[in-house]
């Protein structure tokens, strides 16, 4: 079997970095940061909620750009990237939505308001869940259909945000986004780093799996296509991803 350290590589290093940062981040959040005066302790949820929402946007963009590349250049590599990013996107979106709902329940007394950010995040999450569904069940053209979906999804980010803001003007409800004091920002950065490092590690592991899957498929195909005698010529002998 392959040596675990070698196959660990960059995602392993990222995971380790996340594992080291995470306790520090939690300790900072709970012990070194003043309690927010208006929302109380529940505001501590925010420190992992915001990085997830940002990560969602980031991976939506990555997935969209990769999907566009996949469509324009017919690149399988880009398809793998788009797919892996789409999955991480759905994961981060679910995290952001759930933590947001819990935080909202604690501070606003309701898990859901029609706030522009909430609706934007929810729609984006829906788009990427749809992306995964199409990629899985879409039939022979699934890859390209899903890619078109991801392109629209990434493109929709500003449109969604803008349209939700328009929609909100008919039901105005002031949600003042307060500016954070510097010590809260200082605690936010380690959390952001931990979440992003973890997400990128998962993304890269997923990407490697996607590539290995492709490689295995091709190997099996090559193996079954050729006869038994000359199998050593037909099987790809490169390093699998």
């Amino acid at each position: 079997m392959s040596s675990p350290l070698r196959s660990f590589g960059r995602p392993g290093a990222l995971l380790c970095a996340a594992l080291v940062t995470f306790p520090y981040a939690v300790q900072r959040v709970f012990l070194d940061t003043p309690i927010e005066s208006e929302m109380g302790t529940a505001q501590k949820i925010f420190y992992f909620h915001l990085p997830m929402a940002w990560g969602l946007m980031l991976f939506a963009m990555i997935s969209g750009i990769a999907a566009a590349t996949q469509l324009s250049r017919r690149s399988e590599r880009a398809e793998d990237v788009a797919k892996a990013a789409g999955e991480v996107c759905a994961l981060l979106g679910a995290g952001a939505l759930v933590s947001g709902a819990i935080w909202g329940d604690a501070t606003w007394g309701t898990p859901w308001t029609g706030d522009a950010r909430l609706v934007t995040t929810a729609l984006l999450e829906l788009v990427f869940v749809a992306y995964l569904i199409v990629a899985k069940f879409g039939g022979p053209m699934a890859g390209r259909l899903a890619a078109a979906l991801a392109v629209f999804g990434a493109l929709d980010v500003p449109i969604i945000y803008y349209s939700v803001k328009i929609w909100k003007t008919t039901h105005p409800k002031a949600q003042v986004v307060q500016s954070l004091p510097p010590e809260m920002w200082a605690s936010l950065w380690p959390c952001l780093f931990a979440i992003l490092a973890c997400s990128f590690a998962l993304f890269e592991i997923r990407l490697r799996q996607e590539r290995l899957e492709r490689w295995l498929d091709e190997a099996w195909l090559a193996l079954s296509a050729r006869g038994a005698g000359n199998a050593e010529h037909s099987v790809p002998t490169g390093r699998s991803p």
Partner: protein
Amino acid sequence: MNPTITTLKQAPPTADQGAAPAAVEDGYEAVTGLDKETVALKRSYEAEVEAKVASDYSHIVWAYGILWSLFCGFAVALLVRGARQQRDLRALRRELDARGAQPVDRP
């Protein structure tokens, strides 16, 4: 200057509060400092804070719990997938060995 008296005067007369001056006549003196209402107010305030803290606490536990279980679920899904791929890879290698071919380079 007794704060008890002044507050009681402002409060609507009830059976409970009406008993207090009677107690003084019995030779007891009302405790100066915190009157009943302030204490009740403080208690209710403390109860509110306690409820808030407990609610915040449970919300935080839920939020962090769900977040990390989401990540763990994803990681487990990745592990399962990876294990399946490794099995597939071993099957491929066995198949190759059975056909007498050179084994594939180690992945």
